[in-house]
């Protein structure tokens, strides 16, 4: 059934022209004189550091908030479980910009807009479903008596959680963290709208470089750095997480 592989030709060709080629052209721009200058500049790396920190904080907040939620949902009766999962996932499909705008409206009276806090809160709000779903999938697969067995063998509640439950659900934790960290690293609209000038991340730098038209090479350099970090993370992720499906 080798002829089946012919199906792949059109989509792969499309992705080579409109994904691989653009990334390659961007990389070549990043290695132009102005691009290399930006790559060598401490400002670029400070922004990469800030974005990485924001992404790490957001990911941690999503993990802490999302784990009990995923746990709780997996222990619900079947019918209610589907409804609550739907409530968690639905905002993810709803327009991110509209949701960010809704947060702007909600946060306005508290006068925390245009701060890092608002930006991270918005990112947490936006990407929490990405964390809950893989966690839920991992927790749901746990044998229901696993915790009981560990407790019978003398483990305290904290030991049960950190020595048994957490390692057993590690694939879900890793998947959730990757799925939140990557998009937040390159976030642009949310920090721009909620964090204002204070929450200036890599995405805003890229936007400024291209749309002000002053230094697209510097923007290409920043884009290349984000691409490299993403590909590295995905490569590591695929090494530890081998799934039978596409994701």
């Amino acid at each position, binding site marked *: 059934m080798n002829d*089946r*592989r*012919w*199906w*792949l*030709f059109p*989509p*792969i060709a499309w*992705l080579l022209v*409109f*994904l*691989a080629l*653009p990334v390659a*052209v*961007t990389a070549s721009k990043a290695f132009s004189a102005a691009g290399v200058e930006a790559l060598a500049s401490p400002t670029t790396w400070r922004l990469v550091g800030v974005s990485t920190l924001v992404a790490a904080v957001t990911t941690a907040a999503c993990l802490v908030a999302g784990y*009990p*939620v995923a*746990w*709780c949902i997996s222990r619900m009766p079947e019918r209610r479980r589907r409804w*609550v999962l739907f409530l968690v*996932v639905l*905002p*993810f*499909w*709803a*327009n*991110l*910009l*509209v949701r960010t*705008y*809704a947060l*702007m*409206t*909600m946060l*306005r009276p508290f006068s925390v807009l245009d701060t890092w806090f608002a930006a991270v809160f918005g990112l947490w*709000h936006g990407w*929490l479903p*990405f964390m809950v779903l*893989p966690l*839920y999938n991992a927790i749901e697969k746990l044998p229901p008596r696993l915790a009981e067995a560990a407790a019978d063998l003398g483990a305290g509640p904290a030991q049960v959680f950190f020595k048994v439950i957490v390692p057993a659900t590690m694939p879900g934790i890793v998947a959730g963290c990757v799925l939140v960290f*990557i998009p937040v690293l*390159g*976030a*642009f*609209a949310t920090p721009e709208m909620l964090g204002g000038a204070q929450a200036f991340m890599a*995405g805003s730098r*890229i*936007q400024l470089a*291209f749309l002000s038209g002053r230094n*697209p090479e510097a*923007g*290409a350099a920043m*884009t290349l750095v*984000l*691409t490299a970090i*993403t590909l590295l993370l*995905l490569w590591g992720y695929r090494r530890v997480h081998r799934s039978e*499906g*596409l*994701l």
Partner: protein
Amino acid sequence: MSRVATTWTIGVLVLLWVPIVLLAAFSFNEARFATTFTAFTLDWYVRLFEDRELRGILVNTLVVAGGSALLSTVLGTMAAMGLRGTFAGKRVAAGLVTLPVMIPDIVLAISLLVLFRAGGIPLSLGTALVAHTTFNLAYVAIVVSARAESLDPSLEAAAMDLGCTPTQAWFKVTLPALAPAIASGALLAFTLSFDDFVITYFTTGPGDGTLPVKIFSMVRHGISPKVHALATLILTGSVVLIVLARALAGTPKEVRT
């Protein structure tokens, strides 16, 4: 333990939904700058529908969403078909097909912008359509592939034993079996395209904004109930589409993003 987890879950859900509910509520509020609800009105919606420019933008949005949904459904289904089974290089091919889902939006947007500029292609609705097709293709492939993998390959073989050509077998057996997943993928693609901001923002021409791009620029001029109304309409539209897409895909055993 479980009581704490339940309370926590309710708290998180409230935090997720309160802004959305507030937004919708305030789109029916009469007062322009109020933080409290004064009186019910549909005035902001009426103003929205009277806005000529907005109607043009809506058409832009629908053209890009419809066009890219169509193209990406064909390409994504092909990818899902080609990725069935195991073969050398599957991991690389699957990695490439799902990459648009995984990379940050801004990376895809900027890379395409750089490509279009390098090729001297002026930005337009067409370039936005190409960009949307690229990320939608991946989503359609994931949705269709979930179904295609569970499809018994001996069905197609049986059809061919009974005298079908491979093409006939595909159209008469495989396609009908995949149809719900394909339709679900198409709806999903339409919704994602309709909702996209970052990629559209960078790959569309100056006069060819879509609704999310319009919201972004409206927000810069301050919050108004008219934006509330527009946002509420977009939200309702995408929720309806997503519910439809899920109903079509059936309820899979495992929940997927």
